[in-house]
């Protein structure tokens, strides 16, 4: 299947000499939700801005549905929607006018029904005649999303879409993104809320210092790089881990009431059975146990830390 976005050896060096992107290559499949994660200044926004035509690349290429973003910019930009990180809005315009204007700017004929549908899906219909300057920050964020969806894009960039928005709006946005995916729209999102990527994304890419350090299916990533931990709630607190258990990857909580065993769930022998047997031999009993898988956030922090 032809990727909807095909980036090859993309480099960007700003006038001051700062290398924002270093030989970035990335393929995005049609219809997927791709989360691009990275710390501040990693190059996420530069990458998005190059694809959207706001920043010029130093070298390399990017193609959208097979069209070059520079030579065939009309074809590529017409099917891209962008929700930027900041809140740049036409202060004096009404919600309806600014959304309808965006549709026309991207070459689509007027379609009041579609604009209405977009505004309703973002709970903006009641505010359609309000001037943007009178809206709250969260509402302005919704307006930006409405503007990006007005021309029915096939590829939508959401650059930190939920930064600084309340829980209700975040839930609304997740619902909108799910609906978009169901309608076949490809979504690329950057976010600081790793929980968001964990819930929404099909695939995850991690960028740091302008280099893509990992691209993988979210499930595979969590399985391969994630750690599992077994928590044992002890009946009697321990002062220290007995020497008989020293061969296991064990940690004792500060109050001595919980023993944490970290293991690799992909191994044929995880060591749990042996640990249980040795606990029994040492006379250590417990009244409760549970296991947990490390989160995407922990994996992300680990990856970024390693790439420094």
């Amino acid at each position, binding site marked *: 299947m032809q990727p909807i976005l095909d980036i090859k050896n993309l480099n960007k060096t700003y006038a001051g000499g700062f290398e924002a992107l270093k030989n970035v290559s990335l393929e995005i499949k049609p219809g997927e939700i791709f989360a691009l994660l990275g710390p501040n200044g990693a190059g996420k926004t530069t990458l998005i801005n190059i694809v959207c035509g706001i920043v010029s690349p130093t070298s390399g290429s990017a193609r959208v549905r097979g069209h070059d973003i520079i030579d065939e910019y009309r074809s590529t*930009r017409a099917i891209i929607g962008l929700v930027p990180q900041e809140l740049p*809005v036409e202060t004096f315009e009404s919600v309806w006018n600014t959304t309808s204007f965006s549709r026309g700017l*991207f070459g689509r004929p007027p379609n009041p029904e579609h604009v209405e549908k977009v505004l309703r899906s973002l709970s903006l219909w009641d505010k359609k005649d309000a001037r943007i300057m009178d809206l709250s920050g969260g509402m302005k964020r919704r307006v930006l999303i409405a503007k990006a969806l007005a021309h029915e894009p096939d590829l939508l960039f959401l650059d930190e879409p939920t930064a600084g928005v309340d829980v209700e709006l975040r839930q609304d946005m997740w619902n909108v993104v799910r609906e978009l995916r169901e309608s076949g729209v490809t979504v690329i999102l950057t976010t600081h809320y790793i929980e968001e990527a964990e819930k929404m994304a099909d695939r995850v890419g991690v960028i740091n210092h302008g280099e893509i350090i990992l691209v993988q299916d979210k499930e595979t990533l969590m399985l391969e790089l994630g750690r599992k931990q077994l928590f044992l709630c002890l009946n009697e607190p321990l002062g220290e881990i007995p020497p008989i258990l020293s061969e296991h990857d064990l940690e004792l909580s500060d109050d001595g009431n919980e023993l944490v065993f970290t293991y690799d769930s992909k191994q044929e022998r995880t060591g749990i059975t042996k640990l249980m047997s040795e606990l029994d031999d040492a006379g250590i009993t417990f009244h409760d146990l549970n296991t947990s898988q490390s989160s995407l956030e922990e994996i992300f922090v680990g990856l970024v830390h390693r790439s420094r």
Partner: protein
Amino acid sequence: MRRTLVQSIVAPVLSTSLYFVIFGAAIGSRIAEIDGVSYGAFIVPGLIMLSLLTESISNSSFGIYFPKFTGTIFELMSAPVSYVEILLGYVGAAATKSVIIGSIILVTASFFVDLNIAHPIVMVLFLVLTSVSFSLFGFILGIWADGWEKLTIVPILVIMPLTFLGGTFYSISMLPPVWQTISLFNPLVYLISGFRWSFYENADVAVGLSLGMTIGFLVACLLIVRWIFSSGYKLRT
């Protein structure tokens, strides 16, 4: 729409009408004719040119600077439109507005003084050329400016003095010979002189030279805009 009408049409018409009342009727009635034209009628082309220049520059410079200031220019830069289309949009809108304002001022002036347009086609040509040229200049100014101060300093400190010293209210032949020579270095002398010629067939410099200078300014602005777009100066990093 109402905001546009009040700010863009009513305000310049009102201020120009005041010029006619003061310089045309009150003071002008005590001034002798210049080259056989009453003073009130003599200043009409200069006043139209004054409004045309200031309106063209301010409309197009604010037009492109405001999206840069608010950040909404990202949408324009990411839209499937060419630089020529962007230019047509901003400069075309500013120039159209200036031509409308110039025409309204012309009609307004006809209520105060007896107007005679000897060469209407040349008059329209100067009106359009000046509007387009200075809208282009304003567009360049709006791209260059990175603060409100820069945006206003050029019209106030450069364009306004040049317009007043360019023969808006007088013929440069009324100046001492040295100042006549110095005035010829003021590009706005050629615009005002050529425009006035289309009304009364009186000019400080030859009309062909005026037309040439106006077209030269237009070409210079177009070349600068072309460089801005090809280099992405202050538009694309």
